[in-house]
């Protein structure tokens, strides 16, 4: 037995909404299972989803959330992890490809921007989970503008921030290896704890650059070849995702 697309969409949005509202995972699963069961029976009796949620799915979600305990620590514990992961990726990248030298602007600015981006990401998710009619066009524009702004400032700092005098430089091989080891160890712990390889996946972006680094090529050639390899990896990745989703489609209708 499967839910109708509309009911499934409501259930998915509800889990996302409760998750971003800081509810506990087992409690979310409990109420989601209970409502799925209810919707299945209701649809068997020919009822419509609006008879279950009332006029506004958003206020219905809110009324459920209000009765559940909020524990942001449940969610917040991921933020420092993701935060440290991003810093780790950068350190590993710098050890592999560049120099470990940072200006004051980067040392202070970067963590602030990353933290801001992460918080914005949570807010965006929450907004879109409750979405529908309640989400005004202006709010969407504001959220998108903030997202673009934070991403832009991230890259701007990446490229311009290093023009000043470095305040933090690690140039010895031992120091470089040591700090890379710390970063890798952290990612390893994160992977072990989350029981997935996901924390290592972003490191793939360094593979193309590293692959051409030791070839006897000029810098321009290296840049061209590494972007070509990167493009190729992205295309293969999207093809895999695309084919997978095509395969799954017939089952969901």
């Amino acid at each position, binding site marked *: *037995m499967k839910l109708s697309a509309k009911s499934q969409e409501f259930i998915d949005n509800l889990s996302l909404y409760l998750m971003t509202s800081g509810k506990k995972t087992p409690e979310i699963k409990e*109420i989601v299972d*209970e*409502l799925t*069961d209810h919707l299945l029976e209701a649809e068997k009796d020919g009822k419509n989803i609006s008879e279950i*949620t*009332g*006029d506004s799915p958003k206020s219905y979600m809110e009324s*459920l959330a209000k*009765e559940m305990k909020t524990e942001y620590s449940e969610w917040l514990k991921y933020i420092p992890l993701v935060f440290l992961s991003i810093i780790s990726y950068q350190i590993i990248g710098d050890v592999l490809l560049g120099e470990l030298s940072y200006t004051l602007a980067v040392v202070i600015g970067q963590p602030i921007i990353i933290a801001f981006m992460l918080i914005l990401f949570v807010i965006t998710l929450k907004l879109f989970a409750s979405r529908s009619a309640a989400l005004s066009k202006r709010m969407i524009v504001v959220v998108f503008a903030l997202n673009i702004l934070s991403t832009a400032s991230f890259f701007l700092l990446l490229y311009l921030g290093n023009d000043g005098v470095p305040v933090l430089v690690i140039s010895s091989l031992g120091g470089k290896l040591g700090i890379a080891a710390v970063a890798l160890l952290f990612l390893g712990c994160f992977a072990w704890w989350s029981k997935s390889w996901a924390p290592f996946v972003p490191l793939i972006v360094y593979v193309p650059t590293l692959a051409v680094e030791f070839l006897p090529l000029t810098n321009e050639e290296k840049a061209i070849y590494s972007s070509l390899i990167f493009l190729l990896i992205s295309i293969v990745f999207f093809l895999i995702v695309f084919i997978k989703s095509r395969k799954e489609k017939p089952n969901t209708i």
Partner: protein
Amino acid sequence: MSSSQMLKGVLEGCLLAVISKGEVYGYEMIEKLEAYGFTMISEGSIYPVLLRMKKEKLVHVDTKVSPSGPKRKYYTLTEEGHHQLKQFEERWLLLSSSVNELLKKE
């Protein structure tokens, strides 16, 4: 005032009464309420109330595998739930008889 708004305040009492008649799960409660003529509530509105009742330990929840397959949450009243139901009955009798009386005289 719509009847669903009126019902909001007494829904908890009605659910206590339904559950007191024996172990029951969410969709069954709706069917029973509908059989008594409660067709004005949106079905989902019982779940926030059930969550609150569980938090206040008025109901006991048992998760069991249903005959049709999925796991289901079955509700029964606790001691405190029975106590609350009794209080609700008294308050409702008083309130409804006063309202009836008032409306009759007008």
